[in-house]
């Protein structure tokens, strides 16, 4: 187990810089998720930590040792790939034993370690099978087994669940988290799925276009997004955003957008006329009764079981409200929505940065 330090890392392909000076400190035993849309550089960063991609500029150290010029096999790391990358011609046992065979580990020790890993991962009945005889989830477990038998300092996961179906993905998510809690090995996990990131991570690193947008614990990132990008990327259904201008109405600050006025939290430092983006998560926007709230028109209602997603048209913007109550709304109906003022996120329109935080 070891910490990982990424210091001023840059990556260029020819003239194109794809990673622009990242700094990241991953503590020993942490589960860090690199999250971002495709092309944000998260996989490239992971591959640089693994040593599969040369580092253009900067320094990566694992356990205090700079590994820039170290061959991947000497970094004492293990990686799990999206497509499992199993050795299809070897049985499950041999897949897991491969690294030890290369090191000429005695057979007794190989057996001990593989059996230990197989037990953790529930693979004991499959040790004598070929990878092609296994399901996707089992294959991914073999890939993890191959990683854990080596007892590495750091685990790297490159979108390991993307090839699995939705149900299996949820199950494997829990298994990976359990594995981490059991082994306490420092883990760096790359995904584009924000739910995976939210559910598994100790800390989420959100990347965009080769820059880090925010680093924080899942709930911190969710509740206090540093900018518009993070706010939009995290959360499902996504955060509601309304663009407008700050104005004062009866002495209280409001957001004017398309002829409607939305109350703003008084604590925020805002200047009249300032162009801002008003953000509120669907669960903080509740259908109001009586005359209170902002008027909107229902367009689609989606019951998910535990809650209802009500999509509405609020001054030309699509806004979603989530309600745990079973409400009887239909398309075209008028609705009044009342935002929880203390849960409002305000962003500067130009820079996209959060205001008043």
């Amino acid at each position, binding site marked *: 187990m070891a910490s990982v330090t990424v210091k001023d890392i840059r990556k260029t392909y020819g003239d194109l810089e794809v990673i622009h000076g990242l700094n990241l400190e991953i503590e020993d035993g942490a589960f860090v998720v690199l999250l971002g849309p495709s092309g944000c550089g998260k996989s490239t960063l992971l591959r640089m930590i693994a040593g599969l991609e040369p580092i253009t500029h900067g320094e990566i150290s694992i356990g205090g040792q700079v590994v820039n010029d170290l061959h*991947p096999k000497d970094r004492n790391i293990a*990686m799990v790939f999206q497509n*499992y*990358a199993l050795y299809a*011609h070897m049985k499950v046992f041999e897949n897991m034993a*491969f690294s030890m065979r290369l090191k000429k580990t005695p057979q007794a020790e190989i057996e001990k370690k593989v059996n230990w890993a197989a037990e953790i991962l529930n693979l004991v009945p499959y040790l004598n099978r070929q990878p092609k005889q296994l399901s996707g989830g089992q294959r991914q477990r073999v*890939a993890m087994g191959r990683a854990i038998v080596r007892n590495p300092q750091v685990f790297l996961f490159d979108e390991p669940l993307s090839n699995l179906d939705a149900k299996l993905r949820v199950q494997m998510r829990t298994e990976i988290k359990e594995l981490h809690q059991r082994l306490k090995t420092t883990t760096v996990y790359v995904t584009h799925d924000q739910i995976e990131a939210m559910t598994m991570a100790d800390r989420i690193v959100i990347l965009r276009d080769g820059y880090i947008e925010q680093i924080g614990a899942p709930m911190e990132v969710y509740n206090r997004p540093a900018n518009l990008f993070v706010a939009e990327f995290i959360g499902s259904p996504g955060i509601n955003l309304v663009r407008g201008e700050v104005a004062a109405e009866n002495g209280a600050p409001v957001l004017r957008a398309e002829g409607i006025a939305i109350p703003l939290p008084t604590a925020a430092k805002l200047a009249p006329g300032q162009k801002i983006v008003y953000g509120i998560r669907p669960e903080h926007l509740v259908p109001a009764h009586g005359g209170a709230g902002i008027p909107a028109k229902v367009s689609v209602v989606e019951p998910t079981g535990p809650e209802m997603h009500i999509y509405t048209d609020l001054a030309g913007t699509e806004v979603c409200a989530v309600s745990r109550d079973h409400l009887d709304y239909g398309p075209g109906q008028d609705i009044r929505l009342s935002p929880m003022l203390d849960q409002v996120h305000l962003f500067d329109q130009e820079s996209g940065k959060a205001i008043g935080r």
Partner: protein
Amino acid sequence: MQGPRFTRILRDITAVLVVGIFMFPIFWWGLTSIKPISAIFNKDEVVFFDFEPTLVNYQVVLFGKSRAELAIESGSTFGVGGGSTYDSRKTILDSTLVAVGSTALTVFLGVIAAYALSRINFRGRQAYLNWILSQRFMPPIAIIVPIVFMYHYAGLRDTITGLIFIHTLINLPIAVLLMKSFFDDVPVDVDEAAMLDGATRFQIFRKVILPLVTGGVAATAVLCFVFSWTEFLLSLFLTNQIRTLPVKISTFVTSTGSEWGFISALGTSAIVPSFIFILLVQKQLVRGLTLGSLKD
């Protein structure tokens, strides 16, 4: 239901017909080889089974008996040809050596070249690939004269080694391109996983990637073998004493007539070694096809 059953019957009939069309020439060739001359050259009717089977043709091409000898043995006069020999045992041996040798060399060179082209990123890789492909555009007849001279001065004319080299030269482009596509089908992640597991480049190639493409190697080997086994033009120009099967068979067509009996007997015999070779690699061929995808 009438529909599906009718379709099934139609499909079976079509399959039998297609196989029949492909198999008939081989069958006819085999049949011709055991016919006496009178049955081969019957211009009044097509002879199928209405003849006295004879192994005379095989005795001539495979056991080195001359016609005169056979005529004396059987106590009858036996057409033209007299004492000349059509013994082809050495031809079969030569052909086998050339085909096996050139196949082995082609597959060896092709596999390592294709692995490099598939996995190692070097300057001019695409140009190099195109250049390899362009070698395939070249018809052998266009370069035969310079090659004859080169072979003459290099002392390779009329040698097994020389034939192995020239067949390798012709086969190599297709072997490289074919093998490259098989290597390309194996995700690079597998190489990387092995690299992280501590394997060296050579260990990755030898222990991980090569076993995954055995099917491709088998397919390439079959292609190369069949090409070499049937190659005529280059072998004809580059040899005098050593004769490969196609060249030897062509010598049975003479100014005084074609020895159809001998041609068919040698042709039928020529099927056997290539048949054995394909049987040997067939297991790998099927295995390679089913091992296939690593993902799903």
